[in-house]
């Protein structure tokens, strides 16, 4: 039995409000599945489960605010070695090693990718459920909302086939609806039988209702955003929220300046090559695939950080731990004040158009309050880009327990010495704030020179 507790979604979080459960008691969850919506001072976040098992009792009602670490629900975890290996083949044989040929189905003819919540974290092999079902059958079961534990497979050794799952799905009642979704549907006048769910097992979630209320995608965003937002956040007024966010930022930044001995570096980068390349790229492609200078700067920062891993990670308990991958925290200012810095995960591995698309998506969701737990809890370094605010440089305050922050100002034309002559070039000032406990200036310098070098070859970014 494990406890699902109120997670710490960043160093600035002391408590959170459980807004909505996305699962019900008795439902099976896998590690990485979103199970609850939690509202923090800064944002509304879908929180993923860290265990694989069955949801037991729900301990906290929606609407309650509890400190970080408070148990929210019990999860009955799967025993590693079940006492009664119901559908296990004779010992010593791995289930996946001997699937009879007929149990390997061809690719699903009717995949429903929009309805599948892919877990961001693949469960380690030993935590896999013990059903005798190949992955495609498991996926079908997830899509159709069938609990494999309750099924008796008709195949060899009780193996579950796709037709077993389909038969079970046909017997099931219609997909479930989360409580918040039901309330919203009432308020917005949405017929729930017309809404297709995107939650686990096709559960209809609040977001699905909001989307349905908004009608076709061509409707004005402003038409839908207002009623939906107010309905979803009845407990807090915008002023309360802004004040709470101010307080969390205040305490985190004070802690940063109290604990972290910052050092600052800065360099001016010639952006002629980068801007020229961007202009060409944007002229050739469709308007929807346009790339902004911000995406180039983020990619250069991510690659530079990969070269200097001592800046990418966390300082906790007097030592540095390197991050597993480059997850760039992107500082996003919110309308009405405040900011969040959700992670652009594995930013160093994304091709530019992909990075641009992810950036748009992340910023939109940050402003709508629809971030996921993994995005807010684990940025390994933050990048802030204040160019849009018209300033030429920013020396940022590090977000603990991270150890560095890269800042970019506005791309601005400046007189420069070019090949012994005076020329006017677009330039940007890149800065680094770093934790002197974790690194020294020489290490930091390597990062900024790498940013400069990378931006001279935009085609390789």
């Amino acid at each position, binding site marked *: 039995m494990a406890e699902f507790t109120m997670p710490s979604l960043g160093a600035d979080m002391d408590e959170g409000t459980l807004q909505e459960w996305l699962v019900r008691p008795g439902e099976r969850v896998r590690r990485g599945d979103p199970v609850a919506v939690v509202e923090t001072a800064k944002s509304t976040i879908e929180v993923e489960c860290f265990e694989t098992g069955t949801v037991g009792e729900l301990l906290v009602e929606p609407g309650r605010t509890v400190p970080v670490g408070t148990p929210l629900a019990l999860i009955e975890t799967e025993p590693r070695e079940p006492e009664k290996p119901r559908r296990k083949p004779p010992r010593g044989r791995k289930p996946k090693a001997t699937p009879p040929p007929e149990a390997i189905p061809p690719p699903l003819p009717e995949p429903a990718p929009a309805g599948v919540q892919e877990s961001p974290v693949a469960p380690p092999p030993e935590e896999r459920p013990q059903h005798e079902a190949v992955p495609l059958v498991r996926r079908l079961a997830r899509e159709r909302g069938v609990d494999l534990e309750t099924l008796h497979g008709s195949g060899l050794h009780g193996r579950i086939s796709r037709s077993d799952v389909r038969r079970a799905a046909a017997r099931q009642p219609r997909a479930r609806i989360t409580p918040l979704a039901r309330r919203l549907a009432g308020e917005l006048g949405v017929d729930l039988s017309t809404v297709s769910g995107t939650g686990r097992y096709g559960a209809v979630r609040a977001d699905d209702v909001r989307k349905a209320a908004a009608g076709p995608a061509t409707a004005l*965003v*402003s038409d839908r*955003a207002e009623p939906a937002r107010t309905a979803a956040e009845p407990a807090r007024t915008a002023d309360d929220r802004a004040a709470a966010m101010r307080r969390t930022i205040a305490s985190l930044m004070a802690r940063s300046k109290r604990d972290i001995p910052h050092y600052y570096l800065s360099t001016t980068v010639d952006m002629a090559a980068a801007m020229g390349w961007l*202009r060409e790229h944007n002229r050739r492609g469709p308007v929807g695939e346009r790339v902004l200078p911000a995406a180039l700067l983020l990619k250069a920062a991510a690659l530079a950080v990969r070269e200097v891993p001592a800046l990418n990670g966390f300082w906790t308990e007097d030592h540095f731990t390197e991050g597993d991958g480059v997850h760039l925290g992107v500082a996003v*200012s919110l309308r009405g004040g405040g900011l969040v810095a959700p992670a652009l995960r594995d930013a160093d591995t994304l091709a530019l158009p992909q990075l641009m698309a992810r*950036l748009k998506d992340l*910023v939109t969701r940050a402003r709508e309050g629809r971030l996921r737990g993994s995005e807010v809890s684990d940025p390994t370094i933050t990048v802030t880009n204040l160019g849009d605010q018209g300033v030429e440089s920013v020396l940022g305050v590090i977000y603990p327990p991270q150890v560095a922050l890269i800042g970019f100002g506005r791309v601005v034309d400046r007189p420069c010495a070019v090949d012994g002559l005076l020329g006017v070039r677009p330039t940007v000032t890149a800065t680094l704030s770093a934790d002197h406990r974790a690194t020294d200036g020489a290490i930091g310098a390597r990062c900024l020179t790498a940013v400069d070098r990378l931006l001279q070859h935009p085609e390789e970014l």
Partner: protein
Amino acid sequence: MNRTEAVDVVKESLAQVVPGADLAALRPDDAFRDALELDSLDFLSFVETLSRRTGVRIDDEDTPRLTTLSGCAEFLASRTE
């Protein structure tokens, strides 16, 4: 597209990008990027939306003309003649 139609489609596009923006208070020659606090991502989605709704391709070079309602209207009117 005449100027009135153009102003309407510009306002609709802005409303889509900045839900809840006070467009009624926006005067024809106000620089709306500042007035509505659009960052570069917002402005890009405005350009995408406007381009999609009007069928006019808008290049980076055109964006300096898209700073005010009247500037946008003039630009759209000239491209849809």
